[in-house]
């Protein structure tokens, strides 16, 4: 009996049939309807395990409906709708199908009640999403896509290996809370960690997201990593190590984001940093912290999509997303600018914007459970967020020095998508009760207390003040004006030189290691070719004599083995 029809199937079925439909606008319209239907299905799905069927001796559950899966399912549907609207004028069949396939797999994974169906959808997101990168059509995008695919598929392979081990051990494939105590659970944890871009496992993210198409990046930013967050929240809530992993995640991307020139890559780093907050929430694992993770994921998908959309609109109009080549665009793209600022304010957690009502849950949870150092790290990271996303993105794109570019305002469908997203960001910030009612646990929480607002404003205003002082003191703007030709170089000077030196040394060492590894790998491949290639001894096929020799040897070995065994 199926009471809850899996919404993923709608996505997958439509994605399969979509390429057959002529007319790009018709397809784009259908794409808008699918998430609406999915939203409706999820909203009305009865709580409990549903859509179960037998596969291969296992009971698979495609619809595990509870509050945790519902909130992720809903926001994924919303994100699919918004990004489809943003991409309304993209009529490429591959991208359209891949988007639906990708979103559908992500939603399917969220509702998967067992690890095997989770694995199926997990790989589905990997395979579908790579087409959004390849769709850019450049040589670089092709190689980036391959790297991305290898990492993602690798994550899936590790996942299924872990599932296999866990099943051998416990005899269960249920996707529930796990404890890190066996190789199986560690492998599953690692698979989730790769998708979640844990520190040192994160490179695929910054590598691939900026390489995708304008619309592709918006789609990519919503699903893969948040699916991993969901999986961690489902499988490993309250796992201590996650607190520290998350804390590191919030800090280290900041430095990279500060020195990065490509704004889409800046956003990719800041995405990584935001994930850190959610991971900390999962690590703490109290109801309030998990609520914070869910709420932050919800808010984050929206404002991050909004930021990617606005930078994407600029890229669409000007052909570049490099900070050094932009500036002064507010004159001709005022609406895009406003939406970008809304996104920036949300990610910086200004009161009355969505980031504020979600992030403070996690901060409070870390404070109330006595993780003071973590709390300090998070506060520092929040200031960092303001610096690289809250100020850097809008400032260098729309203000700063005038690049002389006078692009047209973004196309209507993009404006509409950004407007809707911006509206949701503000709505959540102003009226958080709506979001809170969706959260997995019933916890009374009021973000708008005097102390919250004041401390957050203090933090933000001091950060702004610092920015202002730097400008007044002539550290920021004069250099900026003077160095149009070599923006990268001066920009790096703003950072403590140490970081530059350290990263230079680190990258040299890294390059040396990579170079060494590449040489070794090339040696191995040419060695394999010498032995296994068409001319190699192992691949030779013609001599009958060698075959007969083999027969004799094998017979001798067989006899030897059976005789010796007797003695």
């Amino acid at each position, binding site marked *: 009996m199926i009471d809850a029809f899996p919404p993923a199937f709608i996505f997958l079925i439509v994605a399969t049939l979509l390429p057959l439909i002529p007319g790009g606008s018709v397809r784009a319209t259908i794409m808008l309807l699918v998430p609406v239907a999915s939203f409706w299905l999820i909203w009305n799905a009865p709580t409990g395990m549903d859509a179960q069927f037998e596969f*291969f001796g296992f009971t698979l559950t495609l619809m595990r409906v509870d509050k945790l899966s519902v909130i992720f399912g809903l926001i994924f549907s919303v994100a699919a709708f918004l990004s489809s609207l943003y991409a309304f004028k993209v009529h490429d069949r591959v991208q359209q199908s891949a988007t639906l396939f990708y979103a559908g797999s992500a939603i399917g994974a969220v509702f998967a009640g067992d690890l095997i169906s989770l694995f199926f959808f997990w790989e589905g997101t990997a395979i579908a999403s790579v087409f959004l990168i390849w769709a850019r059509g450049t040589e670089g995008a092709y190689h980036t896509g391959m790297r991305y695919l290898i990492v993602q598929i690798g994550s899936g392979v590790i996942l299924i*290996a872990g599932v296999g081990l866990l099943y*051998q051990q416990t005899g269960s494939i249920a996707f529930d809370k796990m404890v890190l105590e066996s190789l199986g659970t560690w492998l599953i944890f690692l698979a989730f960690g790769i998708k979640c871009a844990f520190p040192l496992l994160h490179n695929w993210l910054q590598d691939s997201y900026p390489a995708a198409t304008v619309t592709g990046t918006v789609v990519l930013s919503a699903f893969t990593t948040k699916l991993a967050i969901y999986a961690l929240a489902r499988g490993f809530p309250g796992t201590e190590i996650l607190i520290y992993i998350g804390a590191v995640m919030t800090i280290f991307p900041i430095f990279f984001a500060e020195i990065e020139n490509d704004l889409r890559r800046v956003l990719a780093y800041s995405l990584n940093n935001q994930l850190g907050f959610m991971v900390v929430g999962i690590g703490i694992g109290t109801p309030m912290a998990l609520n914070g993770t869910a709420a932050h994921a919800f808010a984050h998908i929206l404002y991050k999509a909004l930021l990617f959309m606005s930078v994407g609109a600029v890229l669409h109009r000007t052909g570049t997303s490099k900070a050094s080549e932009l500036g002064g665009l507010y004159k001709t793209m005022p609406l895009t600018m406003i939406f970008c600022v809304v996104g920036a304010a949300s990610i910086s957690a200004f009161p009355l914007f969505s980031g504020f009502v979600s992030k403070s849950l996690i901060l409070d949870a870390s404070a109330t459970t006595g993780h003071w150092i973590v709390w300090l790290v998070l506060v520092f990271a929040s200031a960092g967020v303001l610096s690289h996303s809250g100020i850097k993105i809008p400032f260098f794109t729309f203000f700063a020095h005038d690049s002389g570019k006078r692009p047209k305002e973004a196309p209507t469908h993009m404006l509409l998508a950004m407007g809707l997203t911006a509206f949701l960001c503000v709505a959540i910030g102003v009226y958080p009760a709506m979001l809170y009612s969706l959260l997995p646990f019933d916890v009374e929480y009021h973000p708008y207390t005097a102390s919250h607002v004041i401390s957050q404003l203090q933090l933000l205003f001091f950060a702004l003040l610092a920015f202002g002082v730097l400008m007044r003191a002539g550290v920021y703007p004069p250099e900026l004006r003077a160095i149009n030709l070599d923006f990268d170089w001066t920009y790096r000077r703003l950072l403590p030189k140490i970081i530059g030196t350290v990263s230079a040394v680190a990258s040299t060492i890294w390059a040396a290691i990579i170079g060494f590894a590449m040489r070794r790998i090339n040696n191995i491949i040419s060695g394999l070719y010498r032995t296994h290639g068409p001319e190699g001894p192992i*691949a030779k096929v013609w001599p009958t004599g060698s075959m*007969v020799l083999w027969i004799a040897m*094998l017979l001798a070995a067989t006899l030897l*083995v*059976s005789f010796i*065994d007797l003695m």
Partner: protein
Amino acid sequence: MFSAPFTFAALSQHFPILQVVIPLIAAPLAVFIGVTSIAFLLAFAASITSLIISYSMLMQVIDGSVISYHIGGWAPPWGIEYRVDAANAFVLLILSAISTVVLPYAKTSIEREIRASAQTLFYTCYLLCFTGLLGMVITGDAFNVFVFLEISSLSTYVLVALGAERDKRALTAAFNYLIMGTIGATFFVIGLGLLYMMTGTLNMADLANRLPALSDNRTVQTALGFIVVGMGLKLAIYPLHLWLPNAYTYAPSAVTAFLAATATKAAIYVLLRFMFSVFAPDFTAATGALNLIILPFAVIAMFAASIIAVFQADLKKTLAYSSIAQIGYMLLGISYFSHTGITATMIHLFNHAVTKAALFMAVGAIVYQTGTSFIPKLAGLGKQMPWTSAAIVAGGLSLIGIPATAGFISKWVLISGALEKGWWWMAMLIVASSLIAVIYVWQVVETLYLKEPVGDVVVKEAPLSLLIPTWILVIASIYFGLDTELTLSSARAAADALLGTAPLAAGAGS
């Protein structure tokens, strides 16, 4: 026999013999008639009849029962017995199903690859080969296995040689195969001779009863060695595979598709039968050091053959080497000596037959249209032959073992068998070797879709008569990745039958 009313029920009692006799009679008939189209119809009718018979027999024995058919009414062990249980009924189904799908394909395919005057002979040889394979699977008599093995082998040599129309190297390949195949068959019959010397019987069930008493006997152990090596040659166990790549590459496309899906599979079944039914499991366990032969070579095959496949420039040869690697997986399942292991072997037998036949047929369609299977020349065909290329991609995914394809099910069972034994390193080796499959499949996909065509020759999509059979198997390779009811329960029943969980000895003549 004739006193019984001529009804289906009466007829169905003779299914075991009809299974073999119908294609056997159809073969010479095809020569006498001498008209290609009628020969085809005859072959196709024989094949469909075989399919129906094998399916209905499988349904009869899947619960663990055994059909024992005494030829000429002579009771075993004196007369020849045909003995059908879940294990060989499943293999019979694979053989006849593949044959039924391949034949319509063959009709179109050979029109371009074999000269008109030889086409009737093609059907004759094909039917003989088919008969031989069915016979060696269905029979319960050890010497009968040899007879049918030779029938199928001799006709296979001719079938491979027929590829000389397209590429003269087919003759060398066939000759090479002839020599090696003969050595293999000779070894096999030497093994049987030794067994007969010691036991005085050739009936498998009877042998199984007498051998345990002789488990310390060196002659019997030597017999086992000869049988394993002889059959190992026919099934292309790794270092004895040298005949296979060229035979598969230069044979006509339809022949390759048929042989790749059936010939080695039948040989694997015979090996299984001898290892587990004739030499009863505990006997084999006594000389269980066979593990030291089959297991390591299976693992070497998984890697070495896959790596060789990566470096091949001819797509047919890539697939041929991949077959050797896949045979490695099947042998690996055997070497587990467990129920799950045999289940893995049996299910991979089926899944790989379907997948590989689909792939070889798709490549055959490319050869049909372009005259070559040289990989660099296939650049850009993805646009020009979309359906054929898509078939290659789907088949390739199943070969790798991507979830939701048949190949995944095989690997899953194989890996769970390894984990059951606590061999997690083996599970890792299986996954690692699958990754090599990703490389060679990806090379083809890249050539088909991402490279620009070399010349501006316009290549048309293959005719429907090639595409439909190919896609039937492609869809099957996906379908059996999703619905595993038939395959998995049959494979489990087969494993039961082989391990004697459903006893073979019942009704034997001792």
